[in-house]
C-alpha cells in the first residue's frame, strides 16, 4: 500500500519536475534567459499598458509581414 503510494508520488513528482524542466529548456532555448538583468527587472514591465504594448507589437509585426508578402509578388 505504502509502496504503491510512493510509486505514484515518485511518478507524479518526476512527471511534474520534468515538465517544469522542459518549459525551462524551451525558455532558455528561445533566449528568454540570455539577459539576466532584464529578467530580474521583468516585474517593472508587466503592467496592463506594457502587456497591451506587447500585443500591439506582435500585431504590428504580423501586419508588416503580410504587407511585405503582398508587395513581393508585384516586384
Amino acid at each position, binding site marked *: 500500500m505504502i509502496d504503491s503510494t510512493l510509486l505514484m508520488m515518485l511518478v507524479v513528482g518526476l512527471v511534474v519536475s520534468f515538465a517544469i*524542466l522542459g518549459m525551462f529548456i524551451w525558455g532558455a*532555448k528561445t533566449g528568454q*534567459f540570455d539577459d*539576466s*538583468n532584464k529578467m530580474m*527587472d521583468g516585474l517593472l514591465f508587466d503592467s496592463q499598458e506594457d502587456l497591451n504594448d506587447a500585443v500591439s507589437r506582435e500585431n*504590428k509585426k504580423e501586419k508588416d509581414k503580410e504587407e511585405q508578402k503582398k508587395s513581393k509578388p508585384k516586384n
Partner: protein
Amino acid sequence: MSKVKCNHCHLEFSESIMIKEEELNFCCKGCQGVYHLLQDQNLDSFYDKLGNKTIQPPLEVSSDLNKFDTQSFEKIYVTEDENGYKKVDLIIEGIHCAACIWLNEKVLYNTDGIIDASINFTNNKAKIVWNSEKIALSQIIEKIRSIGYNAFAYNSKIADEKASLAKRDYFIRMMVAVFATMNIMMLSVAKYTGFFTGITPEVRHLIHLGEFILSTPVIFYSGWIFYRGAYYGLKNRILNMDFLVSAGATFTYIYSVFILFGLKGESYFDSVSMIITFVLVGKYLEVLGKKSAVDTLDTIKSQIPLETTLIKDGKKVEVSVEDIQIGDIVELKTGDKASVDGIIIKGESSFDESSISGESLPIYKKANDVIFSGTLNQDSLVQYRVTKTFKDSTLNSIVTLLEDSLASKPKIEHKANEISKGFSVMILTLSILTFLVWYFFGIDLGFDYDGVSHFEKSFIVAISVIVIACPCALALATPIASLIGISELAKKGLLFKEAKFIEELARTTKLVVDKTGTITNGKLSVVKAQILDENIHKLDLLYSLLDSSTHPISTSIKEYLKNHYKNLSLKNLSNVKTLQAKGMKAIYKNLEDKEFEILGGNQKLIEEFGIKYKFDSQNSVYIFAINKKVIATFELKDEIKDFAREFVSDCLKNNIDVIMLTGDNQNVANYVAKEVGIKTVVANINPIQKAKYINKLKEEGHTVVMAGDGVNDSVALSSANVSIAMGNGADISIAVSDIVLLNNSLESLNQAFIISRKTYKFIKQNLAISLIYNLITIPLAMAGFVMPLIAALSMSLSSLIVVANSLRIKGK
C-alpha cells in the same frame, strides 16, 4: 546656492545654472528636449519607471548619420533575413537602468518600419530588424539619439553569436544537471536515512529507479561535453581530464544500472550526477567569462570608425580605414574619432582619450603631438600625418591583443592538463591493478569479500578507486581560484593576459617603476598662484569662466580655487567662447547693466587681445584678465599620483623592493622618490640601460615586475618577468606587457599585488587540499576500506571545500 534636480536626468545642479520652465528645471538643452519629446509621445511613464535613479544627460553626438547608410557600412554590419528585412546589431550607449531599456524599445517599436527591436540589459547590445523600404538605418539611429542615447554597430558574426550560443548551451546543460542533482540529493537523503532507521528493499529499489531516471539526462545530456572532450583527447592521443571525468562517471553509472536490475549492493547514481554537475559549473563559469570578454571587445570594436577623410592633392576624399597609408594626411573634424595613429601637422584641439586610457579629462594636443586611434577630437579641426596603418594603430592593437588573450589558453591550465594527463593514467592503472589483485590474489591476501562474489567485490573496489580519485578537486583547484582572482582583478580595471602572472606577481621581490605616468600622473596641478586682485566678485567671475570649460587646466585651477576660497559663487556669463588652444572669452553684465570682458587663457590669448603682460615660466601658464587688466596668474605642473606613498610603503611591507628608473634628471627624480618613499633611484637612464638594469636584477635571482607607460619603457617592460602597462600608455608598451591597468591608478596596481597574492595563496591551499585528500583516500580505496558510497560523498565534499575556499578570494 541651493541645488535642484534636473527633471529629466535627476542629477543635482546649482539652481543658478538651471534652465527654468515654470515648475520644471533642466540642467541642459538636451535634457529639456528629451523631456518634452517624451511628454509629446505619451512616454512620460518613463519617469515613473526611473524612480529616484539618475541617468546621464543626453549625449552630444556629431552629425555623422550619413555613414549608417553608406555601402561600406552595410557590407560589414547589415544582413538580410528570410523575409527581406534588414538586420543590424548595435551597442546602445547611455543605458543605465531598466527604464532606459523600456524607453528605447518603446520608441523603436512605435516607429513605423521597425519590425523588431530587443535590447539586452546585461551588455547593452541590441538587435534591430527593419523594413528598408519604409525607414533608413540613419533615421533609426537618429531616433535613438533624439531620446538622449547613442548607438554603434558591431559585427555579431565574428565572436558574439558563437559566444552567446556556447553560453546558452552550457547554461541549459548546467541547469539540467543542477535540477537533476538536487532531486537526486533529496532522494539520497531518504536512502541514507533509511540505513539507520530501516528501509524495505522495495522502497530502496524505488529510490534507485528515481535516481536512475534523473541521472540519465545528467550523464548523457549534460555530460556530453566531457565525452566529446575525451574523444578529441583520445584522437590526439591525450588522456585528459575530460576522459577521467567521463570514465569515472560511466563506470559508476553502468555499475549502478546493474545494481538497479538485480545485482546486490548500493547504486551510486548520486555520485555520477555530482561529478558531472560540479565540473560543469566550473566550465560554465569559464564560458561566462569568455562571453563578457567578447562583449567588452565588441564595445571597443564598435568605436572604430570605418571611413576617414584624407587630403589628397588639396582635395578631400573619403577612404576606407584599411586603405590609409603611412604618410597620408588625415583631416579630423570636431566630433570625429581618429581611426589611425599619427602626428598633428596643422591645428590644435583637445582629445578625449577615454576609450584608450579610461581618463575622462580631455588632453590638449598641438602640432607634433601624437594622436592615437580611437580618441575623439573635441573642439576644432586638425590635420595629421599618418604614422601607422590601421592594422598597427593603437585601438586595433588593443583589440587584437584582447582577441589573442581570448584564444590562448592560460599556461597554468596547460600545466594542470599535463598533471591531469599523468594523473588519469595513474588512476586508471591503479584501478585496474586493484581489480586484478582483488580478483586473483584477494583470498591469498585474506581480503574480506562481505559475502558477495569475487568479481563483484573486486569490481566495487576498483570502481571506488576511480570515483574517489575523480579529480574534481584537482580539476577545480587552479581554474576556480584563478577565475575568481582574474574576475576580481578585472573588476578593478586590471587585465591579466594570462593566469600565470598571478603566480609571478605573488612571488615578486623587485618592483621597477618609471617616474612619469607611473608615479606622477599627466594631471596638472597649480604650483604657483598670483592673485593680483583679491576682490571676491572678480574671483567669482574667474570661477564661473573656469566652470564653463572641461579643459584640464581649467579643471585644475577650479579645484585650486575651491580649496583656497570659500563662498565662491557662479555668475551668469554670456557669450562664452572657446578660443582654440588659447583659452576662453566671455561677457559679464552687472546689475547696473555694465559690461565686462573676461579673458582666461595662455600668453598667446593675452597677446592677441593686446594686453601687455609678460609672464615667463617653465610650467603651463593661465592668465585671467577683466577688461584687459590682469587679475590673476597660475602656474601648473604634473603632480605625484594619489596613493603613491601608501603604495610604496605597502610594497616594502610585503618585502617588495621598489626601484625607480627614470630618464629625468637626478634632482627631479630624487624629489619624487623622497616624496613617495622610494629608496633606490636611478636617474638619467636610457631605455636600453633600463632593460640592462632589469636583466641584472633577474640574474641575481629576483622576480622582477616592471610598471611603466611610455614608448621608452617598452624594452624594459619586455625584459621583466611580469610587465605592467599603465592604461594611458603607448600602444607598444601595452603590446609587450602582461598586465594592463585600465584606470591607471596606483591603487589598482596595489590591488593587483594584493589580489594576486591572495589568489596564489588559495591556489596553493586548494592543491594541498586535493593532494592530501587523494593521498589519504586512494590507498584506503584500494585496500577496500572505502565503499563507493563514501567515496562519492567524500569526493563531493572535497570539491565543495575547494570551491568554497576559492570563493574566499572575493571576501574582504
